[in-house]
């Protein structure tokens, strides 16, 4: 079974990106959550989630991102969502989550924000 989620670890942070899934919704969210939780539990604290391949996130999908956010916050880490499309940002607004997640247009600026 191909992984939905890929992890690239670096000294200060890890990048989670999506492969083979463009909808983070009620159909995919459970599996994505399980895979992410599995990857993050190792000694990772700062995490970037690259959402540039994700064109749609529903409330279950956002629920997964919230639970990842909580896990990282409990480890005093930082979570930045990278490359979120304008449409998905509008959905985030509907979900009242715009002031809950930190966004960055690309990895470069996300790294700058990490060290800010």
């Amino acid at each position, binding site marked *: 079974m191909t992984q939905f989620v890929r992890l690239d670890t670096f000294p200060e942070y890890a990048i989670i990106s999506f492969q083979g899934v463009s909808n983070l919704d009620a159909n995919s969210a459970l599996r994505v959550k399980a895979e992410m939780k599995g990857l993050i539990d190792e000694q990772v604290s700062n995490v970037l989630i690259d959402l540039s391949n994700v064109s*749609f996130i529903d409330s279950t999908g956002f629920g997964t991102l*919230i639970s990842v956010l909580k896990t990282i916050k409990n480890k005093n880490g930082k979570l930045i969502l990278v490359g979120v499309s304008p449409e998905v940002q509008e959905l985030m607004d509907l*979900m009242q989550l715009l002031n809950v997640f930190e966004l960055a247009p690309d990895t470069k600026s996300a790294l700058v924000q990490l060290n800010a």
Partner: protein
Amino acid sequence: MLFIRSFPNNLVQTEALAEWLQEVAVAVETIPYHKLRFVIHEAFVNACKYGHDHNANIVVVIRKHEDLEITITDPGNGFEIPNALSPFDAGAIGLSWNLARDRDTNVIAELRAPNTLSFSLRQEKGHQEVELMENHRGLISILKAAKNLSYHFVPNSFNYLHITC
């Protein structure tokens, strides 16, 4: 102008629903595709999750008049009314309760007419210490995108969620 389709009652259908809405969005114009898809997707997922009759189809009717009226049928007995009251029980009229509570937003459900449950958002001064909710956000997001959201209990017919955008 009416767009009508029915879908089998399972989550996998959200793909076919999204494709259909792509064409509908072109004709509707007053709401962008991603919002139209999100609102109907959320309602559809709820109808699948909370509907009881799993072989009944879910019918989606989109009516473009002055407003955009979206109807999603619900193959089940619909929202539970507190104290196990029936939506047709005169005593239940006027009952209102909190359906979902987030840091600064509550979804209020109120039984107005004998068969109509209307939903509204009540913003409250943010009590930040409240735990951030992972779910129960579907109706919040539909309410933010819609002018009006209500659920209708109809004996011997399909119950339905009615969204006006």
